[in-house]
């Protein structure tokens, strides 16, 4: 494959190709619709013969995430992917990784729940992704791609952020972004780091006591409460720094807007079409698209509340992100929610109707 090839592929396939190209050391996963193409593409590409990347189909999502825990403990760039029910199974491991402060990438290609639910697209794992998900006080860095191109681009970005803050990062996509094909420019190849580079860049990693250094221990356990509080406070300080520095968002036609839609991922794509339709009917509406769902663009939403008459949270769920919007807005303007459930994607006309009904 050429260095910067323009091609047509599914979001799931883009994740796999981007992983190989960004120097990922290992992928550990388990099949589940609608994300199985990630593992299938990796298996077909055989990166172990080219870049040396390890690809392993685990016996369960529980095992996948713990393989990621083990691999991340050694300073390697490792990842997994799954869809909603599988991500629920991974919560234990994700909490341990947050506690042990391990950099890794988890991809969630969401489907409708609760329970086994449906295999169709949904955004109903927003709470799970952004509010911890597992036990304990922790956050993942959560990136929400809205195109196949962003599926490819966010793999490297997620790893960069994960290693910068020693914190697990998540790409929160949905079945629509995972299954749809679009034009994508794959990133250029970046070599995997050598073992020497890893040992130098990750002095905390369990690589073996190379050069006779002191033992490294990766653990989330500390039975002395006073010490555990200190660890928690340090992690919280890290989260405040991430909130300060890493908020990412996109604005679309907000300059003259009377109303704003806030939407992420595929809902944001639908919102753009709805905005075209609404504007053709004389309704001045724009879009704020959070790219990082955690850290959430709270300040941007606050600024929005100063200049629009109302905000519609468009989500493919029963209303999750709308809570964060309302917290930011502090009652200054009406905040409404519109979404469809159970794997149904709202169409652009429905959104325009919802906009008219809401304000």
């Amino acid at each position, binding site marked *: 494959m050429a260095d910067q090839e323009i091609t*047509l592929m599914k979001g799931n396939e883009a994740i796999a190709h981007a992983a190989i190209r960004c120097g990922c050391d290992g992928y550990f996963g388990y099949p589940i619709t609608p994300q199985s193409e990630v593992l299938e593409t990796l298996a077909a590409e055989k990166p172990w013969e080219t870049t040396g990347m390890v690809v392993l189909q685990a016996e369960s999502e529980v095992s996948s995430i713990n393989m990621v825990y083990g691999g991340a403990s050694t300073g390697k760039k490792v990842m997994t992917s799954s869809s909603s029910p599988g991500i629920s199974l991974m919560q234990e491991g994700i909490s341990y990784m947050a506690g042990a402060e391990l950099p890794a990438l988890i991809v969630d290609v969401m489907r409708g729940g609760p329970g086994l639910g449906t*295999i169709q697209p949904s955004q109903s794992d927003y709470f799970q992704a952004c509010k911890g998900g597992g036990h304990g006080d922790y956050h993942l860095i959560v990136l929400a791609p809205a195109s196949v191109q962003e599926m490819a681009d966010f793999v490297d970005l997620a790893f960069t952020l994960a290693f910068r803050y020693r914190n697990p990062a998540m790409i929160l996509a949905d079945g629509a972004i995972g299954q749809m*094909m679009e*034009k994508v420019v794959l990133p250029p190849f970046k070599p995997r780091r050598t073992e020497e580079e890893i040992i130098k860049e990750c002095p905390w990693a369990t690589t073996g006591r190379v050069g006779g250094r002191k033992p490294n221990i990766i653990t989330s356990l500390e039975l002395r409460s006073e010490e555990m509080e200190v660890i928690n406070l340090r992690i919280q300080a890290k989260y405040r720094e991430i909130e300060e520095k890493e908020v990412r968002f996109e604005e679309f036609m907000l300059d003259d807007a009377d109303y704003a839609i806030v939407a992420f991922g595929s809902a944001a794509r639908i919102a*753009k079409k709805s905005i075209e339709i609404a504007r053709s009917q004389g309704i001045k509406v724009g879009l704020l698209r959070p790219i990082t769902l955690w850290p959430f663009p709270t300040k941007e939403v606050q600024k929005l509340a100063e200049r629009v008459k109302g905000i519609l949270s468009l989500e493919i769920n029963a209303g999750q992100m709308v809570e964060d919007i309302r917290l930011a807005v502090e009652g200054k303007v009406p905040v409404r929610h519109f979404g469809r459930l159970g794997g149904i994607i709202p169409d652009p006309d429905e959104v325009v109707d919802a906009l008219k009904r809401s304000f």
Partner: protein
Amino acid sequence: MTEEIIIAGFGGQGVLSMGKILAYAGLMEGKEVTWMPAYGPEQRGGTANVTVIVSDDPVSSPILSSYDTAIVLNQPSLEKFEPKVKPGGTIIYDGYGISEPPTRPDINIYRIDAMDAAAEMNLIKTFNMIVLGGLLKIHPVVKIESVLAALRKTLPERHHHLIPKNEEAIRKGMEIIKKL
């Protein structure tokens, strides 16, 4: 130019791959494209559909309320998508799979007997290419050369000897599509 197309039929009719070839051909002409399937167990025998958008500008929503063109290859798909064709838009249906043809007076209705033609040519597997040929005759969304290039790109090498048959099928489709 933006062309918003829904292709719908039974799983196994080549609906998804027809959409993929169309999208790929658009990509090769430097256009913006999205291919959004209704995925899942529907691929096996049930109804299958895919939304393909080919545009000169970045594509906003891959999911649409209405379409410029609907290609319907069975009765349930016709019933579902005929109402969603934009006024002045186009519907193309295969006579074999449709017992009650479309009736809307405000859209252009085309019939293509692709299944019969594929059977006559003894090329059942090129059924979807015949339909694609019909579409390209009335809406030249992409050039035939781009479709052939897309086939070369997406078909495994061992199937490249089938490309002339596919071209034959496309030309057949262009020939037999008729406006009602």
